[in-house]
C-alpha cells in the first residue's frame, strides 16, 4: 500500500529531497511569491525557473 503524502509532514518530505532539489524548491517558491501580484496568466516565472534549474545543475 503506497504512503499517503499526508502521512508525512512537509518538513519530512523536504528533508528526503536531494540538496539540489531542496535548493530548487526554495527558489521556485521565491520566484512565484514575487509574482503573486501579477495575473495568473503571466508566464515570466517560467523563464526564471528555467534559469534557476540551470543554476542548480550547471
Amino acid at each position, binding site marked *: 500500500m503506497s504512503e499517503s503524502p499526508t502521512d508525512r509532514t512537509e518538513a519530512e518530505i523536504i528533508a528526503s529531497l536531494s540538496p539540489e532539489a531542496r535548493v530548487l524548491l526554495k527558489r521556485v517558491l521565491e520566484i512565484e511569491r514575487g509574482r503573486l501580484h501579477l495575473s495568473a496568466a503571466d*508566464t515570466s516565472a517560467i523563464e526564471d525557473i528555467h534559469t534557476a*534549474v540551470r543554476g542548480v545543475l550547471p
Partner: protein
Amino acid sequence: MKLVSIELTNFRQFLGTQHFALATTEGRNVSLLFGANGAGKTTLLNAFTWALYGEMSQDVEEQVRIANDSAWRATRIGDSLDVSVTVTFEHEGHSFKAQRHAAIRKASEAQTRVTPDIQLWITENGESRLSDAPQRKIDSVLPKQLSRFFFFNGERIDKLVHRKAYAEVKQDIKTLLGLEQVERALEHLPKVERKFSNELRKLGGERAADIQGQIETQQDRLGQLRTSLQRELDEIAALTEDREGVVDLLRQHSEAGPLQRQLDEAETALVDARRMRDRHEAERMQVIATKGFLAFSGVLADRSSELAAELHQRGSLPAPIKREFVDSILEARKCICDTDLLPGSRALLAVEGWREKAGLAEVEGAWQRLSGQVSNLRDARAELRTRIQTLTGDVTSDRASIDRLEGQVSELREMVRQLPLEEVSRLEGRRQDLQSQIDTHNGHLGVVRRDVADAETQIEQLRGQLRAAEVGDEQAQTAKRRMELVQTVEETLKQILEIRSADMKQRLDTKVKAVFAKITVKPFYPELNDDFELSLLQRHEDGAILPVPKSTGENQILSLSFVAAVSELAREVSAERAREEGVHQDWGTYPIVMDAAFGSLDLNYQREVSRALAEMAPQMVVLVSKSQGQGQVLAELKPYVNHLGVIVSHSTNTAQDSETIELLGRDFPYIRTGADSNWAELLEVTNDSR
C-alpha cells in the same frame, strides 16, 4: 499593511480637502466614524479602494460622478477641477503615500468618465522616492482580488461567502494562506520541463525525448481534463445553490415546511447510513485483505497438533534426554555414573545408542514456540470469524436502514409533491429538475475524475521509463538530469499542496467556529468543507445535524466570522513564513475597513459583534450610523478606539432640524441643515474639539 491616514479632495460628497488620521497605538486599534444615512460612509469606504485600485464597489451608484457636485458647479466651463484621494500606509518597514488624482476639465455641466492617474511615494530611511510602477507595487502589498476581504460593506458581506462566489473566494483564500504560489509553480513547472526536453531532443537523446513527448501529450490531456473538472464542479456548485434556495422556500412554506423538515432529517439520516455502510464494507475488506489467510490455516493447525500428539505418545517429544548432554558425555569419555567409555566397550555402545534417541534442544525449543503459535493461530482464526460475522451483520443492518430511509424519503417527497398547492408543486418540480441536473453533472464528474487518475498514472509510468532510458553524451545527460530535477520538485510541490490545503482548511474551520461562537447566542455552528465552502449547522437533541435556514443577520455574522478567521489565519501564516523562509512578517497582515457593521443585526448581536470587532484585525476602521453605533456598541468599542470621528452631513434642506450626536460627553454636529450646498465633512472628535 497599516493605514496611517486618508485625505479626500472634492471626492464625491466630500467638498474641499478633508483629512482623517487612522494610525493605531498599543491597545487602541479602532477608528470609529459615525455618519447619517447618505452622509458618505459608503463613499469613504470606497475612497480607499478607489485610491488603491481605481475602482469602487458595484453597489455605488453614479460612479461617473466622482467630483463633488458643489465644487463641479462652481467650476467654470473650460477650467479644471482637482479630484483626489490620498491614502498613507506602512508596510514592511516602509511608508507609502498612494494618491489617485484626476484634473477634470469641465466641458459641460454633466460629468463624464475620467481616467485618474496614480502616484506612489515610498519613504525608506528618511528618503522619499516616486515609484516607477505604482500600481504594481500597490498590488504586491495587497492584491486587488484580496481587497474585498478587508474593505467591505457589512450588510453585503454575505455575498462574499455566497455559494456562487466560492470559486473566487477559494482562490483568494489560497493566496492569503500561502497556497497560490504552490499552485502557480505546479502550472509553470511542466512548461519548464518541456524546455529541457526540447534541449534533450536536440542533443540526440531520441529515446528519452520520445518518452518526454508522450509525457507532454498526457500533461496536455491532464490540463484539459482539469479544466473540465473545474467546470463540472462550478456547475454543480451553482445548481446546488439554486436547489438549496428552492428547498429553503419549501422549508419556509407554512404547509410544506413541516414535511420538508421531516424530509431534511430523513435525507441526512440516509447520507449518514450510506456513509456507515461504506465504512463497514471498507473495514470488512480490510480485515479480509490482511487476515483472510487465517481462514485457510485450519488444516495446518490441526495437522501440526496431530503430529505433535503422535510424537508425544511415542515418547519422542519431549525427549527424555537431550543430544547435547549425550555429546558432552561422549566427549568426556566418562558417563555420569563415572564409568569410563572406552573404545569398543559396551558402555560406549550404550551411550552412542542413546544419542540416536536424544532430542536436539534447538528442535525442542522451536517446537515449544510453534506449539504456542498453533494455539494463537486457532484463537486468531476464531477471532477473524467473529469479526467478519459482526461486520457482515453491520453491513446487512446498514443496508436495511438504507432501504427503509430511501422508502421514507421517497414517500415524503411524494407527499410534498401531492400537496394541493400550486406553489409547492412548482417548487418541488423545480427541486427535482435541479437535482436531476446535479446527478447528471456528478456522473460526468466521476468520468472526468477517472480520466484524470488515468492520465496521472500514465505520466508516472512514463516518468519511470524516462529515468531508465539511456542517453548518449554528457550534455544530453545534463539535460535529462535537469528534467528529472524539475519533475522531482513538481511531485514534491503536489504533496506539499495537499498537506498545506488540508492544514489550512482545518485551521480555518477551527477559527471560524471560534469567532462565530464568540458572537452568536444560538446553538449553531459553522462548518467549512474541503472546498472551503461555508455552511451553518445545528445539532438537534436527537443528535441529528441539519443545515440552518439563515436569517440575513446570521448570514452577516457568518460572513464576518469567516473574514475575521481568514484575517487571523493569514497573520499566523505570515508569521510562520517569516520565521521559516525569511519573508517579511507584514505580508498577510491587513486592516479591515467596514461600513454598516451592524446593519442587519438586532441589539443582542450588535453587542456581541462590537465586542468581537476589535479582535478581528490588527487595525479596524468602522463606519456606523448613530442609531447603530451608540449605546452598547460604543460602550464595547470605546476602550479600543484611537480615532473617533463624525462624517457631518451638510444639507440645504430647511424642512428638517439639524441633529447632533453625543460623544465624549459633548454634542457634535451630525446633520447640519440650511447649508449653502450639500456636502460631507470629516470631523475628528477629540477632547479638545468643538
